[in-house]
């Protein structure tokens, strides 16, 4: 009962206004997450058709491409870490960063140097605070990524991958992406995948027996088609990762804000109880003081009579 009733009232009020904020953020995240999911769904046909085309080329022609070649002894790896721009999303950014750290350790264990690329302010801030060099970072789009951003990131990473070792400091032999996969509203999972060299899944549908494989004609030529196809494939994979991360971020934020609102409710309940107790104690004290006073007066008057 250290504080007065007035002070408890002030605390209840501030918790209530905080609750209003977290509640609003929860609702905003909930409404945006539907849009983010729709965007991810809208991007699916492109990714699907692109995958189909890539596997068609890979299955029906024997062309090697620089982007699919495994370097003989990889020395350097690049990691793209997809984090959020804003906080208040629970453990969202930190679990991605933890997963990224694990991958860095693993790659270092294999004797590879690691270049870091980040997307989102949280990742940038994390490495800046620890004074670790980041090769490049992109910010300002984490909750609604556009394809242009993905294309730019893709172009940078492909350039780094294709650069000859020694010719430039940025040349890498592999590219990994760490992002959060959106499994459902309740569970999002930080995932690390290797982006380059590309592993093309061959054959979209296994041909039936007796069925002849379609013989593709390539215009202008298989290698030129592949040349423009594969970078787009990489960009579309990055776009997919960004969209998944955006949906996950919003889901994580909604969950975090929901529990913050619930906690605020609990806190308000607790403060109300204590405030009521304090108020009651005040009243009891006043009554007993009055009664004591009256008794004292009555005793004094009885003594004098």
């Amino acid at each position, binding site marked *: 009962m250290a504080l007065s009733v007035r002070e408890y009232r002030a605390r209840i009020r501030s918790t209530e206004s905080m609750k209003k904020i977290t509640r609003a953020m929860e609702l905003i995240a909930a409404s945006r997450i539907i849009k983010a999911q729709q*965007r991810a769904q*809208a*991007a699916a*046909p*492109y990714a699907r*058709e*692109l995958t*189909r*085309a890539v596997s*068609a*080329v890979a299955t029906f022609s024997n062309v090697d491409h620089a982007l699919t070649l495994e370097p003989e002894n990889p020395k350097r790896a690049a990691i793209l870490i997809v984090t959020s721009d804003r906080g208040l999303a629970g453990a969202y950014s930190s679990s991605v960063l933890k997963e990224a750290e694990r991958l860095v350790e693993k790659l270092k264990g294999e004797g590879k140097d690691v270049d870091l690329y980040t997307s989102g302010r949280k990742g940038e801030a994390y490495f800046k605070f620890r004074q670790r060099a980041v090769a490049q970072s992109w910010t300002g789009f984490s909750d609604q990524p*556009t*394809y242009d951003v*993905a*294309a730019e990131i893709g172009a940078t990473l492909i350039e780094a991958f294709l650069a000859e070792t020694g010719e430039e400091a940025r040349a890498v032999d592999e590219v990994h992406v760490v992002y959060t996969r959106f499994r459902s509203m309740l569970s999002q999972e930080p995932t690390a995948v290797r982006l380059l060299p590309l592993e093309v899944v061959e054959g979209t549908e296994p041909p039936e027996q007796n069925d002849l494989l*379609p*013989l*593709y*004609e*390539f*215009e*202008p030529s298989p290698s*030129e*088609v592949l040349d*423009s*196809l594969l970078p*787009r494939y990489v960009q*579309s994979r990055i*776009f997919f990762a960004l969209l998944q991360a955006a949906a996950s971020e919003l889901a994580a934020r909604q969950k975090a804000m929901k529990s913050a609102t619930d906690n605020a409710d609990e806190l308000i309940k607790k403060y109300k109880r204590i405030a009521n107790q304090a108020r009651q104690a005040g009243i009891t004290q006043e009554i007993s003081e009055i009664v004591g006073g009256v008794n004292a007066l009555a005793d004094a008057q009885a003594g004098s009579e």
Partner: protein
Amino acid sequence: MAQSTDKVLQVELVAADRLVWSGQATMVIARTTEGDVGILPNHAPLLSSIIEGVVDVQTADGETWIAAVDAGFLSVADNRVSILAERAEMSHEIDLEHARRELERCKEAGENDDEAREKVRRAEARVRAAERAS
């Protein structure tokens, strides 16, 4: 054509962030790096790069749809045609006046490098698509 009238093409025009148009068609015309190509039902499997230009789709019920697309791909197999481009717009989504001004601006900026030329081609394609539709 006579025996292929019962066959139609299943067409999907896809941009990076959405499905722009999908449906059945009897003919698709697109501009590849080698020149315009027309696809009829039962076309041999084809995978080709397309450049900024206009895609012309004649649907099974005799309508014509026109779209402006960016550089991308055209793939044909089993009477399925998919046109992939990073950006694609149907002609009715394009504001003609706006597209014309954009073209002027791109032309004034010069056609000195590849990027500028690509921009001009893209603007031209949008104007052409919008003009043909109106």
